[in-house]
């Protein structure tokens, strides 16, 4: 059961609708996100942290950024701490999961989500939102790992991981595997991709979605 405040916030968030697909990409507010989990299994492992930055008007706004750790009832296995660097005490020092998730939705609102290998982030967040809040936000997801090879086909064979694409564009990450740091690096990559999309005359969400659907019929590397 949610407390009264949280319940009111949840009700407001349940009313959020999907963004207008005809809206120009340049005017779109994007929410670039990365999650850290207690393992690599999106269906089981706990959500530890959410990091996100917003792109609006074609720019990343540093004050419009989001970082939350989620308290865990049990600290996760030591092996994962080595990847994420979130120690047991830091994990427990986070916020109650339902509060962190409400914060997240209030930050993201209707903005289309962007992530690298978005399927994982999407699955983790959807599961957490559904189990903790009973919500299924209608915002569309875009996968930078899918969009990048379409817009830079010449580099696609050399790049598969986030690090490959970041290296290609000289983007550095201040703390790799930190949720916000990775989200920010992905956001810089997304700026490059938006710029390339504009060059290809892809100017609306709908056109970008059409490009991604068409990809299924394209021979990929």
């Amino acid at each position, binding site marked *: 059961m949610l407390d009264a405040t949280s319940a009111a916030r949840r009700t407001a968030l349940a009313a959020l609708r999907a963004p207008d697909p005809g809206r120009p990409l340049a005017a779109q507010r994007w929410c670039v996100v990365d999650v850290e989990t207690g393992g690599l299994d999106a269906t089981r492992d706990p959500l530890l942290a959410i*990091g996100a*930055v917003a792109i609006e008007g*074609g*720019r*990343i*706004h*540093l*004050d419009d*950024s*989001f*970082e939350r750790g989620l308290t865990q009832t049990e600290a996760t296995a030591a092996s994962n701490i080595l990847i994420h660097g979130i120690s047991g005490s830091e994990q427990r020092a986070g916020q109650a999961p339902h509060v962190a998730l409400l914060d997240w939705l209030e930050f993201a609102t209707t903005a289309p989500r962007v992530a690298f290998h978005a399927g994982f982030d999407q699955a983790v967040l959807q599961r957490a939102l559904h189990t903790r809040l009973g919500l299924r936000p209608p915002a569309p997801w875009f996968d930078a790992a899918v969009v990048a090879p379409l817009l830079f086909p010449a580099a696609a064979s050399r790049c598969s991981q986030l690090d490959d694409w970041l290296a290609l*564009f*000289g*983007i*550095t990450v*201040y*703390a790799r595997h*930190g949720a*916000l*740091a990775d989200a*920010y690096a992905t*956001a*810089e990559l997304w*700026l*490059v991709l938006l*710029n*390339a999309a504009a*060059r290809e005359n892809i100017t609306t969400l709908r056109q970008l979605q059409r490009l991604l659907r068409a990809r299924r019929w394209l021979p990929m590397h």
Partner: protein
Amino acid sequence: MNPVIPLANSLHRATVDALRRQAPFATMANDEVLWLVQRLSVAYYAEHAVLLEPAEVRPAALFIIKQGSVSGVAADDQAVFQLAAGEMFPLGALLAGRGVANRYIAAADTFCYLLPASDFHALLARSKEFNDFCTRRIASLLEESQRAVQSEYALALDDEQRFARPLASVVRRAPYAVRPTTPLAEALVAMEAARIGSVVVTEETDAPIGILTLKDVLTRVTLAQVPLVTPISAVMTPAPATLPDDAPVADALVLMARQGIHHLPLVHDGHLTGVVSEKDIFALRRLSVDGITSALRRTDDPARLPGLAHDIGDLAHSLLAQGMDAENLTAIISSLNDQLTERIIAFESETDRKLAGLRWCWLALGSEGRMEQTLATDQDNALIFDHADDAQREALMAFAQRVNSRLDACGFPLCRGEIMAGNPQWCLSAADWERQFAQWIDHGSPEALLHASIFFDFRPLAGDAALAIGLRTWLKHAAQKNPRFLHQMSRNALRNRPPLGVVRDFVFSDDQKHPHTIDLKMNGATPFVDAARIFALAAGSPQTNTAKRLREAAQALHIPDHELADWNRAFHFLQLLRLRHQHSQQRAGEIPDNHVDPDTLNPLDRRILKEALRQARKVQARLALDYKL
């Protein structure tokens, strides 16, 4: 984790750390940098993308290059500078609140931090380190100020004002007119000889009744095989469109466009006074030093000179707009005004038989003598001659007065102090001049010192320069022989303190008519001019130009190069402010002056003005040192 920083997430902290690796953020307080970071946005520019265009509007943001590089490109597409990661731009334009002059282009794929202009100004106020970094280097600031002003003026210079001028001012020569009965052959030969594109046909009353242009000749004469003995009235365009010569240029443009004609006779009370061609009108757009010089040389009608004087003014405005520096600009104005004056003197002297055989020389004084004329200049001139009897003296004076009044008609108002060649007091033989100069030097009264400051900057402009050179040589010895005089001049010059205040930053002029202003001429430029004159007289230099005098003096007095450079930069900045002030006054239809309210200056210019006045104090301090004052 830095517990001191409130509400900073890891992205903010990482950006703070990254920025603090470079100046000026390295020396700034942590929370000032965080304040900055939380107001930044990040933008991406692919190689060749334009970040900023020259524009009239002030830039919206400060750019800090995060990674990549940016080129500054001038109007001629030449890259003028290259900026690397960590550098900020456009500082000058932001400080001055003006548009940028250069185009900023990504030289590689580039990420920039952007700080909104309002936050940039807030940070200037918050952080002393940031403020110092942005505003400290006067030389580079001046450059930036100069570049910034280019775009402002280039965009502000519309054609509207030029096209409001009366047509008479555009006409370059007397019209060529013939009677209706004139044979074609005669008219065509004359057109060819005078290299004109049209001939107007007039009646005895001088009223235009027809026009024939070279273009008409092709269809109506050559192709129609009309014999050249035919009277011109048979092929002319009868009853041509005309305009009064005081109609604005814009009317002619409209009429020409509407009727598809290229030549338009101008009338005054029904009489033909000129012909204006499309070329004349479009020549207005292409004012150039060469164009005006050759027009001055070509013109055979003194009545055209006021129009050319107007062109000199327009050219000066447009050069100012193109960002020309004050030293070159004042030299160009002076040199064109010289040529105009020479032409007037030639018109008035060549036709005057009474001057035959007399040796005389026209002297330019004051700012003209120093080659430092601005846009607001009245006449300062004198005449020196060899022996002359009373009648010849009368003739010289009459000649000088005619020149004075023609100069007046060209927009150089008669000097309020009556310092003009046409004044019997200043139309003297060489021997009388020496006597007069000697009296000023010996006397040293305030009036004598004032006269010395105007007359001792004399320069030969027309006539027999040997007379002026002789007088200069005489003055050189007389001044050097008389240390007391230079001492008095110095004391007098030091009374004029640059208006920097102890409590407020500027001390306003006590001129009741111009409250809350400072006099950029008297209290800004004059301290430099006065000191330079004394240095030159003491060194026995014939130089009259302030910058050149200072350069010579610096060598003789062992003043370091960088100090000299600062003096000259400061002097020319003051001159530039005067020019800009006068320019805007003239555009607003006001009489130009030198009274500027410092509060109307943008923060950058205000800061540079203070610095320039500080330099004026330094020059004075040097003078005081030399004369133990």
